[in-house]
């Protein structure tokens, strides 16, 4: 039955997938659509989510109260001799968890039953409460105990792990988004390149055909034909490379978004996004995942240093029974490190390392910001040049077209102008890709930062 259900579900999923694939070409794929799909399907991000969930679970488990433990124990005993006794004890959870139950009797052959329950509640790392109750057929006894450990070390590793997982998850979101945007643009650029290379191949084929005709007429030498043939082979090779690049880009995008490759054919045109808010240096540093992690490590090292001084182990306990019997116990123990303070020394060294690491990270992050700024400036210059190149190529193509109509230029000249124009467009596309990729890095929109 389960198998049938699964099978039906799979069929429905496949049908929906096919349907979506069939419908997909009807509308062009937008950049936002690609990003949404990437967020939903990117495996790296999914891993980050899982790690975050694990860290969250660990954080929850690390809470003092999670150590609460309730245990029950029961015993049956029978004496063979004139006097006997049985006892059972259990200790569970928390520093104060203890329980004991015992029955005794002087009469032989009497079956004794006893049940005991123990509840240990660690209220904090330094304070825990224990409740114990025991009952047999005739008596019930119980006690409440409180245990205090003033110098108990607080374990913040789960919290630190949660913070790190959160930062990593945010970083993964940013990487996913920027990668998806980059791959989307890469596909568009590759498509443009393929169009250009196809035009170059076509031009070379036309040239070859024309030269072959002239060679037959004896108006051109065969060496020219060889040269053109070589050009054709080279153009074909470039086209193959471009097609491979396009295929790779589509595969990457498909892998990132979970969309079928066949669906990744029609895209919105790539444009320059106006009105972007680019981050300044301080915001760049503040939202850098590396910096956040370095800061967290530094804070942890500082905290560790502050609490690393070895102190005497001191514990105080108080116990009150149902018969109002009470006891108070205190225990103090000393370790050699109380004198040598090696743990403190180690923590100091760790702190020094983290401080250096933090300074280095800050330097590299600031350098990255400068590099990114330079990359944007360069990409902007390239874009402007490419734009001018396209404008010139378009002019050149128009002029050549007019000359062809007047008989002052040949079809070969027009093909060449067309090739140049497509090349310019490819260069422009590439410049746009570089510029947008560089600006994406600095765009405040994609600076994913959230307080835990």
């Amino acid at each position, binding site marked *: 039955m389960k198998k049938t259900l699964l099978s039906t579900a799979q069929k429905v999923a496949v049908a929906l997938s096919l349907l979506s694939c069939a419908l997909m070409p009807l509308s062009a794929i937008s950049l*936002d659509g690609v990003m*949404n799909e990437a*967020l939903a399907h990117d495996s790296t991000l999914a891993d980050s*989510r899982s790690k975050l969930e694990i860290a969250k679970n660990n954080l929850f488990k690390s809470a003092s109260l999670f150590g609460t433990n309730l245990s029950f124990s029961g015993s049956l005993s029978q004496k063979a001799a004139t006097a006997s006794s049985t006892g059972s004890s259990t200790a569970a959870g928390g520093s104060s968890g203890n329980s004991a139950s015992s029955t005794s009797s002087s009469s032989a052959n009497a079956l004794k039953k006893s049940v005991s329950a123990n509840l240990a509640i660690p209220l904090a790392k330094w304070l825990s409460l224990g409740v114990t109750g025991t009952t047999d057929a005739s008596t019930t006894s119980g006690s409440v105990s409180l245990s205090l450990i003033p110098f108990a070390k607080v374990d913040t590793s789960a919290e630190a792990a949660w913070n790190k997982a959160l930062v990593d*998850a945010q970083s993964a*979101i940013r990487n996913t988004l920027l990668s998806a945007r980059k791959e989307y643009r890469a596909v568009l650029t590759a498509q443009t390149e393929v169009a250009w290379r196809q035009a170059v191949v076509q031009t070379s084929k036309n040239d070859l055909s024309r030269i072959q005709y002239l060679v037959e007429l004896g108006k051109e030498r065969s060496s020219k034909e060889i040269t053109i043939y070589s050009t054709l082979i080279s153009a074909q090779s470039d086209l193959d490379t471009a097609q491979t690049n396009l295929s790779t880009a589509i595969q990457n995008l498909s892998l990132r978004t979970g969309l079928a490759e066949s669906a990744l054919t029609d895209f919105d045109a790539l444009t320059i996004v106006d009105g972007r808010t680019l981050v300044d240096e301080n915001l760049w540093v503040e939202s850098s995942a590396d910096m956040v992690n370095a800061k967290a490590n530094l804070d942890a090292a500082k905290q560790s240093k502050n609490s690393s001084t070895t102190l005497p182990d001191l514990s105080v306990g108080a116990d009150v029974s149902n018969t109002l019997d009470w006891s108070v116990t205190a225990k103090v123990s000393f370790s050699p490190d109380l004198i040598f303070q090696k743990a403190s020394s180690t923590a100091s060294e760790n702190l020094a390392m983290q401080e250096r690491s933090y300074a280095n990270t800050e330097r590299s992050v600031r350098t990255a910001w400068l590099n990114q700024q330079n990359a944007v400036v360069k990409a902007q210059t390239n874009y402007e040049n490419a734009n001018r190149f396209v404008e010139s190529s378009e002019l050149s193509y128009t002029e050549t077209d007019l000359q062809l109509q007047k008989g002052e230029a040949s079809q070969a000249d027009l093909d060449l102008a067309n090739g140049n124009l497509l090349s310019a467009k490819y260069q422009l596309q590439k410049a746009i890709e570089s510029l947008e990729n560089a600006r994406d890095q600095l765009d405040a929109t994609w600076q*994913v930062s959230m307080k835990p």
Partner: protein
Amino acid sequence: MNTIVNKWFRVIKTHPLRNILLILTTAIGTGALGLSMQTTARLDRLVQSTTGGSDRRIVIANAEIGVNGDLSWTRPFQFSAEDSAIFTSDVKGIKSVAIVNQMPMEQIKVNNKYWKPSSVLGTDNFYADVMGLKILSGSFFSAADVTSKEKVMVISERAAKTLFGDVSSAAGQIIAVDNGFRMPPQRATTGTQAGGTQAGGAQAQSGTALAGGRGANAFQQMSSWSNYKIVGVYSDPTRFEADNYGIADYITPYTSLLPTGMNFTMPVRMFAARISGTTVKNIESAIRTDLETSAGTKIKVTAWEGSPDSPGVSTIEKARQSLNDLSLVTSGLGFLILIIAAFGIVSGLLVDAADRAKEMAVKRAIGMTVARGTFELCLRSMALAGAGGIIGLLLATSLSVPMREILVPYLTALGIGSTDLTSRIFEIRTLLAPIAALSLAFVFSLLPAAKAAASSIVSGLKE
């Protein structure tokens, strides 16, 4: 706990001015609803105490109401003392029945002081059940007292305080009662004996002195004085209740007028009854049918809710309706204000959702579900509503006393005295106001929050 408080402060700090205004709006709405709840609780208690809540206390008379509003009695009376038991067992809706008779009582004397009794009633041992009287001291007189025509009396708390200073010392005291019966003296020449040895010499002397007059006819008529023993003191009902149901300050067995040895059955012409789950008219019809079936003749029966002294007049129904209307209006107004406040909270939520679009988008990208996002946004609204609710609750509690004073003129117009309106600093029902604020905030926020939480992640990140 610390985490919750910190989160709460973080909510406030995001837009302090806007959030404080929202909290104040909610506080006013909650305060208004709290006050109305408080008022409703008081009024409900007033309705409960003055009109018996869902129970009704009616008078059943062996008469018809004439055109002038007076009762036209049937003579001889067709009711009997046994009818009370028959009504209780046969007529559906009647919980208990007591015989009521008007008792003559011209004056009373306590510790050599004469008093004019405010109101007197003769009845039987069921009257306390019918009227729901709470006995503070002693007990209500028994069936045996009624049968044996004992001269015992149950008095009200205020009568006890007036006559004896306090309630506790009243039980067991003797009140000399002048029933107003005038009888010829046994020996007109002496003039020293009162009307019967039972009254005692002192009373007789006084009675003679009081009623004897002057001149030749000075001792031709003598007052009929009797000693009544106080067996119980009952807690004062509200004045409204006492006036409208004719609950007298002095209640005696209706047979006590007769001398103990006299073999005479007191006529019965009226009953007081406590009914539940039916109408007065139904009871009237049922009793008439029951009596006519058993007697085989036409029986005059009239029943009304109110006092034996005011036949057919029921101000209680009007008061009950007015109090219920007042409760409804105050609750409705408070609720309306709270709904307006809830709209404010929702508008705040929308702004908040827009402000937090990026944060929500990031959270959703790292695995938060739409339901969780919706809950988180709603929680923010509820934090504001909760703060407003607590302030509103404090506001309502602090305005408890002034609100009571505001109500008094309205109640006076209904014939209810200010003392009838009980006052408590804190009414449990007031807690409904912050609960309503929280619920409204949650319900009103749910859809906008769900819409905001379900929006596209990328669109959210672009905000």
